[in-house]
């Protein structure tokens, strides 16, 4: 088999996507059947999640099946998704952003809003993005944390977590 056309590569990817979603749908449906009671009257609490699970299974089967049938077909280049980058660096960045957000939430609860925000901004800019202009990094870190704290916390009265690590 010679080089795959972009169209064929797309079909292979759809096959994988369809199969992953198929598994997700089956697992979801299984959990729904195992944990949600059917209810006592009318359309109970189980019905909707169940129908959605079955729907997902059916649709992802169609997606995967269609892609399988077209795997050696011929068609237009589907074009890209409008997103930048490919492969490992992108995957790494997805994980990093996810972790930054989660760590921000965790820190906010523990170290309080001000410190958590300053740390998150500084870490993202300096370590993750490699920004080396000290004034920009410091300005953003202090500006974002103190700015939001002043405007929303003090002036507008929004609740900002104080954290449990520091006694003030």
């Amino acid at each position, binding site marked *: 088999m010679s080089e795959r056309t972009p169209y064929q590569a797309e079909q292979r990817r759809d096959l994988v996507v369809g199969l992953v979603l198929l598994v997700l749908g089956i697992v979801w449906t299984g959990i729904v059947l195992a944990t949600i009671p059917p209810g006592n009257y*009318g359309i109970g609490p189980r019905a909707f999640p169940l129908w959605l699970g079955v729907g997902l299974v059916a649709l992802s089967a169609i997606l995967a099946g269609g892609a399988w049938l077209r795997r050696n077909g*011929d068609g237009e280049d589907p074009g890209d998704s409008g997103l930048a980058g490919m492969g490992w660096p992108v995957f790494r960045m997805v994980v990093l952003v996810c972790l930054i957000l989660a760590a921000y939430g965790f820190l906010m609860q523990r170290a309080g809003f001000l410190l958590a925000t300053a740390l998150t901004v500084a870490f993202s800019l300096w370590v993750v993005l490699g920004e080396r202009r000290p004034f920009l990094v410091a300005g953003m870190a202090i500006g974002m944390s103190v700015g939001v704290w002043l405007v929303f916390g003090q002036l507008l009265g929004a609740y900002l977590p104080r954290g449990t690590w520091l006694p003030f």
Partner: protein
Amino acid sequence: MDLLLSAASASFTPVTVAAILLGSIFGVIFGSIPGLTFTVAMALAVPLTFSLDQGAAIGLMLGTYIGGMTGGSVSSILLGVPGTPSAAATVLDGYPLAKKGQASLALGMAVAASAFGGIISLIVMVVSVDLVASLAMNFGPAETFALLIFGLSTICGLSEGSLVRGFIAGILGLMVMTVGVDAMDGVRRMTFGTVTLQQGINLLVAMLALFAVPHIIDAFVRHFQEERTTKQVKAVGVELPRLRDLGRNFWLMVRCSLMGTGIGAIPGTGGPVAAFLAYAHARKTSKNPQEFGKGSVEGVVAPESANNAVTGGAMIPLLSLGIPGDPGTALLLSALLIHGLVPGPMLFIESPDAIYGIYIAIILAYLFVFAFQVAGIRFFVQLLKVPPHVLAVAIVIMCGFGAYSVRNSVFDIYTVAILGAGAYGLMRVRIPLTPIILGVVLGPAIERDFRTAMILSDGDLSVFFSSAPAILFMGLTILIVGTQVGRSLISSFSPKTPGIGRNAPVSSEK
């Protein structure tokens, strides 16, 4: 007329006007920042009203509500991240317009359409409050379900080519919203025995995950990929819409405003539904439907006039029946109560002056919001000069803070992180995100109304075809889905259809 004048003189006390102004600005700020919405702003405004008198208190709340609904378009257009769920439809064309360098035009059109929609809905409220209220009363669970499912059918138009992908996306959105405690039966669903998951997935949290996180990841990736070439700081021109642009869209705005008013008057629907339906309507009736999604002005005007018309629409059942349509108006209701106004049929008889006061406050709030936003456009667009990676870091913070402020729960930040990564993954494999947000927006209401209708009809499905509005919307839904599925099936099985990209069948000549 005398009443109006006496109410006017009563409303024009400096304190009341100042309260309306303050509320409007407060609302616009909360609305324009992704993650902060008018619901949060209104909850914060309630304690501020304790020390105010009735007129000023109501002015502050109304200003916040209206400002928050209008402000949502700012970040939709500039960042591609909606400021409030009601502004999610504005992203579809507002953001492409900004990318084309027409951010100020889009912002100007959005605020003009918003004010227009708000004022139209106010007029409807003044002239036909009883009529609209009785209309709302005729929308029982079955009719509301039909309307919502019709709203869901716009997925077909938002699927970006592949119907199967669109439906998958819609189902994923609906699935996400079933997590948590089922409000009707009190049953815990997909909570895996934890208390944390009983909160369920908040609409706003899902929205941040779908729009903001992919934006952040993409900006971070681009930062490395584009080899830090000197960032071309393009001069950001300020091009305000002219009256001619507004005139061209006049009837579209009128139609979308009326639509928004009607939808706002039906409890349990609200801004996002109105905005998406208006968007679908605009595309259907447009002379240039192919422009939609690429930066069509109509695609900004339609949702913005509709979502602001919802404010007036939602006031109708609130004032005349005492029924709040969403958490925001529920807070407005309790603020009215605490200041001695009991909404309901007696309000119009016992305190008509208060009603006129409310009308005047709405007009003033729109004037202030309009002036504030038009004046602000020059400053808002400066945001585009900020380097994208710095902006992305700021969005990380706003995501965290915004998600937290919804329910003061860290769980919501974790949810944004996890769902956001998932959303980015789906975007990569070209599952469209807009149907997901539609499923997320409509999911809880669709399930609730379907189940309630079935309980009321004792399990008889014909209830969905037993009244004029229900038949109309169910019929339209079946028509739309039927033709789309039919068309897609035909294109899949016919041997060779030129011009069908993604769904092109295996070519028989091979």
